[in-house]
């Protein structure tokens, strides 16, 4: 376990900000003027142009994908996957930019697994939705829940800049926090009951507010990510991924249900948001072992989703690819439960058939 410290006072500006401003300048006219069905093809042209303009970067990215996947197979060639990942980044930015326009962005959303949330709330102790670090999820998940009347309190880091899934390292700047980040968060906030931001000084008072929401039988969402006071490096594909333990720890502290949520793109402007069955905590030797087991099981679910929809995962280029392999899994790994959860990953097609 390696704790993730909160960043010191952020710099004013960074190269990432320049890149983001350039991206926004290029994409805003497309987002506002082009019909949505043209977004992906136009984004694809830009992605291809970037891929061909920087061949060394493209080769390195493809090599990273190959190392991360190891012997596993995905449906497309790795070069095409590299471009498809960029397409996803591009399209998500276009969605956020279109949402700024009067009339907004109106995707067709389908929420699957609502019954899991309803069942959790019957216990009166609230629910923690653990949302995925994938393209589209940040805005689409909030919209889908809002559309069916679920009031969500979202816990978030104080800034992630404009691009929620940038492949660039998380590196907040004051410009990013005050100018770029609100471009995204003010859109997301339309669909939330409230945003509970982790304060810059690391104060823990926000945690009381979050717990209070759960005691009121509220719904709290937390995006799976590495920012938190306690984080684990967990086996993932052929490397490791770092996940903060805040979501399972909160659920355990409040005796609330912990529900993984995944989001997939099913077509232009069409998305499925899937609420999985609650991850049940096991009786372990210590609280940390229980939290670690829940985190590991979430990682197993995420891995299955990533293999089905590799083009939307935002962590390909930031995951750790070293000699650490799954045979060095933490002692907290309770494989029996992890295997059961892996089998229980919702088959979207089955769920959809059942909901029609």
């Amino acid at each position, binding site marked *: 376990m390696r*704790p*993730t410290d909160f960043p010191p006072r952020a710099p004013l500006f960074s190269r990432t900000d320049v890149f983001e401003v350039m991206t926004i300048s290029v994409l805003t006219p497309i987002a506002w003027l082009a019909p949505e069905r043209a977004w992906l093809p136009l984004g694809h042209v830009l992605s291809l142009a970037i891929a061909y303009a920087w061949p060394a970067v493209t080769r390195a990215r493809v090599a990273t994908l190959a190392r991360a996947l190891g012997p596993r197979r995905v449906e497309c060639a790795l070069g095409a996957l590299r471009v498809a990942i960029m397409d996803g980044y591009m399209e998500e930015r276009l969605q956020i930019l279109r949402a700024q326009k009067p009339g907004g962005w109106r995707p067709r959303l389908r929420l699957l697994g609502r019954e899991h949330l309803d069942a959790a709330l019957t216990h009166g102790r609230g629910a923690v939705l653990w949302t995925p670090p994938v393209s589209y999820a940040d805005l689409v998940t909030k919209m889908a829940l809002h559309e069916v009347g679920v009031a969500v309190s979202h816990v978030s880091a104080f800034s992630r800049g404009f691009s929620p899934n940038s492949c660039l390292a998380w590196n907040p700047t004051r410009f990013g926090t005050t100018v770029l980040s609100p471009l995204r968060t003010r859109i997301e906030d339309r669909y939330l009951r409230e945003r509970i931001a982790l304060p810059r000084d*690391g104060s823990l008072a926000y*945690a009381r507010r979050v*717990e209070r929401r759960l005691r009121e039988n509220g719904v709290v969402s937390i995006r799976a990510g590495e920012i938190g*006071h306690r984080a684990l490096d967990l086996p993932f594909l052929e490397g490791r991924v770092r996940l903060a333990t805040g979501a399972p720890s909160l659920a355990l*502290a409040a005796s609330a249900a912990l529900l993984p949520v995944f989001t997939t793109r099913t077509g232009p402007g069409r998305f499925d948001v899937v609420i999985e069955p609650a991850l049940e905590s096991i009786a372990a030797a210590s609280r940390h072992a229980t939290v670690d087991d829940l985190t590991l099981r979430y990682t197993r679910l995420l891995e299955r989703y990533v293999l089905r929809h590799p083009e939307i995962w935002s962590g390909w280029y930031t995951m750790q690819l070293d000699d650490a392999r799954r045979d060095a899994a933490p002692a907290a790994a309770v494989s029996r439960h992890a295997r059961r959860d892996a089998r229980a990953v919702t088959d979207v097609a089955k769920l959809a058939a059942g909901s029609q």
Partner: protein
Amino acid sequence: MTPEALIAALRAILRERLALGGDEGALDTDTGLLGAGIGLDSFEVLQLVAALEERFGLTIDDDDLLPDHFRTVGTLLRFLEPRLQVTA
């Protein structure tokens, strides 16, 4: 109350309320709490705070929930001392 008594109370809270503590014999003022050492996260610190409030009849305000107070057993003791009249 002495620092030793406070550490004993802290040890009991970590064991009974949080099922944490690891090698409890090694709990001393240098033992990390938040993030390192025992490795508490925000919500575990909140449980620790609730247990301290209950045990000692304290009220810890939101403004006092700063990470520096919970870095180590020592920093927590220094935070609690004026509130509990700890004597060396």
